[in-house]
């Protein structure tokens, strides 16, 4: 079976989101709306409601009543002599059918997909795993925390202290992530609105991980240290029908502040650009559409598409006026649902590092 053809969505929110959708696309009628089918109808699935507080550690575990969900980690790492590396570890859960439970065995209706990537300034390694729930090949447990698909794992005693591993045919990594900061709810205390029409998701982050560990590359092992960012999100219909893709920024600024911002591109040109400023102590300040502004400055041809790999971002409320550049502009994720995701550098009013994810460029 050709997963690639089968699961490629017809239309164009965070790549992760998308990916999940990819699995979701296999259930029910073909979803032609939104990137990776994420604009599809959520009938039968639970819908996010505002004003619901997160409950940890339970909410670190899966929410099978919702259609899609992901555990999404990106890490900006530094090797000997200051060499920059980026690492991505993502696990998507996608319900094939509503019902909210997971039958045991092969009849399970939960699909799981893992994406792992390792980016150097010159090369980009990526690999993918797909599994179904029910037989133990993939899953997430909240306490003690463990998320896994095949031999890849995100296993802690808790989600604040995890070991993150993945292997591909030509790379591997084994990293320890730890933080003592609280998890940061995005949007309205975790209720993240994705369109004017009201599509929304539950969304929280952990942008304060300190990382150390080992990367295995074709020419040997590299000891690295750095910062990592976790996004947790679950929803049933996260995108509006007309939203064709997004540009997602998660930036570590040198002063210890963090900035999350995303632009949801709309087929009608009516883009939706929201952001969250996270103070060094973890206090979030969400900004609704229209505050953070972003403009592509330069595009690179990647995989036959024109992808903006150099950006100008401005958030006047925070005196932020920066340029964001890809460390490796060819960080193309050639997976079932393909997208661009890679480490970036930040210069301008603030310096820093971060990750950029762009989807829906055809």
């Amino acid at each position, binding site marked *: *079976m050709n*997963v690639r053809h*089968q699961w490629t969505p017809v239309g164009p929110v965070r790549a992760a989101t998308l990916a999940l959708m990819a699995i979701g696309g296999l259930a029910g009628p073909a979803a032609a709306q939104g990137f990776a089918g994420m604009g599809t109808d959520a009938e039968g699935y639970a819908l996010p409601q505002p004003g619901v507080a997160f409950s940890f550690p339970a909410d670190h575990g899966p929410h099978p009543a919702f259609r899609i969900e992901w555990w999404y980690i990106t890490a900006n790492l530094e090797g000997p002599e200051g060499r920059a590396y980026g690492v991505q570890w993502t696990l998507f859960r996608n319900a094939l*059918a509503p019902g909210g439970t997971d039958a045991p065995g*092969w009849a399970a*209706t939960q699909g799981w997909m893992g994406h792992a990537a390792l980016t150097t300034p010159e090369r980009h390694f990526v690999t993918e795993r797909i599994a179904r729930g029910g037989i133990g090949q993939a899953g997430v447990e909240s306490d003690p925390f463990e998320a896994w698909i095949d031999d890849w794992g995100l296993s802690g005693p808790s989600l604040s202290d995890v070991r993150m591993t993945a292997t591909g*045919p030509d790379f591997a990594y084994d990293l320890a992530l730890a933080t003592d900061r609280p998890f940061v709810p995005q949007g309205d205390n975790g209720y993240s609105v994705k369109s004017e029409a009201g599509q929304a998701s539950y969304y929280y982050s952990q942008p304060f991980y300190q990382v150390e560990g080992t990367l295995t590359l074709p020419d040997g092992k590299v000891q690295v240290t750095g910062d990592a960012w976790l996004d947790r999100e679950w929803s049933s219909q996260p995108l509006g029908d007309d939203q064709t893709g997004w540009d997602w920024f998660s930036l570590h600024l040198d002063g210890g502040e963090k900035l999350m911002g995303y632009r949801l591109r709309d087929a009608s040109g009516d883009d939706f650009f929201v952001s969250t400023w996270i103070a060094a102590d973890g206090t979030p300040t969400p900004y609704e559409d229209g505050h953070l502004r972003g403009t592509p400055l330069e595009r690179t041809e990647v995989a036959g598409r024109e992808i903006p790999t150099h950006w100008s971002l401005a958030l006047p409320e925070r005196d932020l006026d920066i340029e964001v550049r890809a460390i490796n502009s060819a960080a193309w994720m050639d997976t079932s649902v393909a997208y661009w995701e890679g480490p970036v550098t930040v210069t301008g009013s603030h310096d820093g590092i971060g990750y950029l994810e762009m989807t829906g460029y055809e």
Partner: protein
Amino acid sequence: MMQAGLHALLSHWWRRPFQLVTLLLGLATATALWSGVQAINTEARASYDRAAQALGAESRDRIVARDGAAINQDDFVALRRAGWLVTPVVDGRVQTENGSIRLLGVDPFTLPGGSLPGDLADTALDLSFLTPPGQVVVSPATADRLAGTDLPPIVRVEGVAPAMGYADIGIAQDLLGLRGQLSYLLVLDDQPLTRPSLDTIAPDLRVREGQGQADLARLTDSFHLNLTAFGLLSFAVGLFIVRGAVGLAFEQRRPVFRTLRALGLSTRALLGLLMAELLVFAVVAGALGIALGYLIATLLLPDVAATLRGLYGASVEGELSIAPVWWLTGLGISVLGTAIAAGSSLWQVARLPLLAPAQPRAWAMARERSMRWQAVAALALAVLAALTGWLGSGLVAGFAMLGALLIAAALALPLILHGALRLGGRMARGPVREWFWADTRQQLPGLSLALMALLLALATNIGVGTMVSSFRLTFTGWLDQRLASELYVTAEDEAQAGDLRAFLEERSRAVLPIFSAEGEIGGLPTEIYGVADHPTYRDNWPILSAQPDVWDRVAEGDGVLINEQLSYRDDLSPGDAIIVSGWQTEVAGIYSDYGNPLAQVLVGMDALDRFEDVRRTEFGVRIDPSETGALTDALIDTFGLSPDAIVDQARLKQMSLSVFERTFAVTGALNVLTLAVAGFAILTSLMTLATMRLPQLAPVWALGLTRGRLARLEMWRALLLAGLTMLLALPVGLLLAWVLLAVINVEAFGWRLPMHLFPGQWVLLMGLSLLAALLASLWPARRIARTPPADMLKVFANER
């Protein structure tokens, strides 16, 4: 002018509709036999491809249980979680009230792109496929067969292999009664950088290396080449008819051509009209031929499918799918055949001397002149055949030799008949007899094409008949030797095998273990069998050649026995060194092993231990044949063995023989068809000649021979020529049989068979050919007998 020309040309066919029918039927038959055989080959090859594509399973390494049993599903999850990229498969047969299918249960989540046939990839990730009740995906033909059975909903997908179904693994486990169990795991590409060894995760499992995808195609190539050769032969025979009909029609229209040219029609225009006419005939006959070919293929395909299944385990759809390309090639071959058959006639027309007088006999005379050329060509081809036989190697060379031999014989036929008739004429006494011999010789050119066709058909019949009968005789004797044990029993696993052996030993004269392993010789898969040191083998095993103390050497592990196929493939003789899966040893002897496409090695029981993963579950049992029934029942009662696990000698022989018979059923059918075509060729030739011969018969009639006498002589003539042709066909056929047995069989299958002679068959065939000639001459003779005397007289009144 063109229109008038066309009208003039076509009017010929109005006046001689029978000639038109002959031409069209000849062409249609040629096309039918050729395209029928092609259709069968194409269908069979497509089936192999689909089977080979099933999960790409043949080419991938597999993980299987060491003891050959099922794999626990938990081992799959453990391997995945250790980093092994494997995908699980359950593989089994599901019985339904409308026959069984092979069911493959797959996991669409871990199975990589392109591993499922056709459009199945589009179906497999559908929720209705994945979750109960699930779906079973089969080919449209299989879907029709399974309609109304209590399987899960059937989904039709083009391109799925015949008699095969795909289902989600969970659905398939339930259908096969294998819940929680897997048949094997396929090892996927792009394994991760590091992963622990298989032993540390699942010590009961092992990796079995994948085999080349082309295996089935390679094994069955020779079979298809055989069919193709037959198709070609039939095509050639059909073309003889066409050639005869076209030649005759052109000759008879010579005055018309001349008149048209004299009236101002250019050579180019005339040729154009004639070619257009032939093209129309070719297309009409081609279409008819394709329809006939489809019918032939439909009738033969079940036998071919049975043969392929029996010989190679290849599954072929019992129904034909018609592709547009098949129609096109059928028409193409028809047009090509017409072009070949009409080429020389068109050439003659192009060079037609405008003022040459009408020569109704010119065609026959020209034929006589061309005899010299035929003799030269026949000689050259005979030399070519001998050279190919001497220098060439390989199946294609074998068939080239056959082809050259047959054509040489066909070309030489008129010459030899001419000589024989001249001889007969010299010995004849009395005017009527002398006239009979001379007149027969005179007619030879007109009949020679039909007789050549008859010669080919008869020689092929004798050759193939001798080959098949020799093979059957050898095969039956070989089966008696090979299947010496009275009962063959297969245990479910090794633990049961131990109990089974103890049980059997108490109740039989001897229990002979038939343990086996898979190995390789020179990189190709080889079956390795352990053989007990027992008189059963010493007394019965069909040894072809061996060192004197062969069984002692094998028992002591100093040597091995190899099958004939292997000895031809690697050019091995007793005493030669051989390396079996890394074990250096010596060939102690060679035995015949008919029907096995693989290399096989027999080793001593102790030597078998040096190979990996030996299956120790099968036994041959020596008992009194009258006790087999009771022992079978006891085994089923005691061990719960399925009846399939116990085979008695008689049933095994019967199964083997039925495979054998079906293998040659197709050959037989094509044989009969070819002979029928040849008989038809004689009929048409005689009939056309009958009308042309009036000028020669009239004078004889006028001299006092009655029409009835003339008609009887006509029949005798046909019988004489058919009889002579049969006599000539005999040596050609025997030579053909020798080539088939000693060259083609060795190349195609790897066994050489002794040739036996079957004079009874020859007598039968002689009878048949005489009967065909008699029947063919009946109608023309009747016409002669009934020709109104007035017509006879007209011969003297105008010279036509």
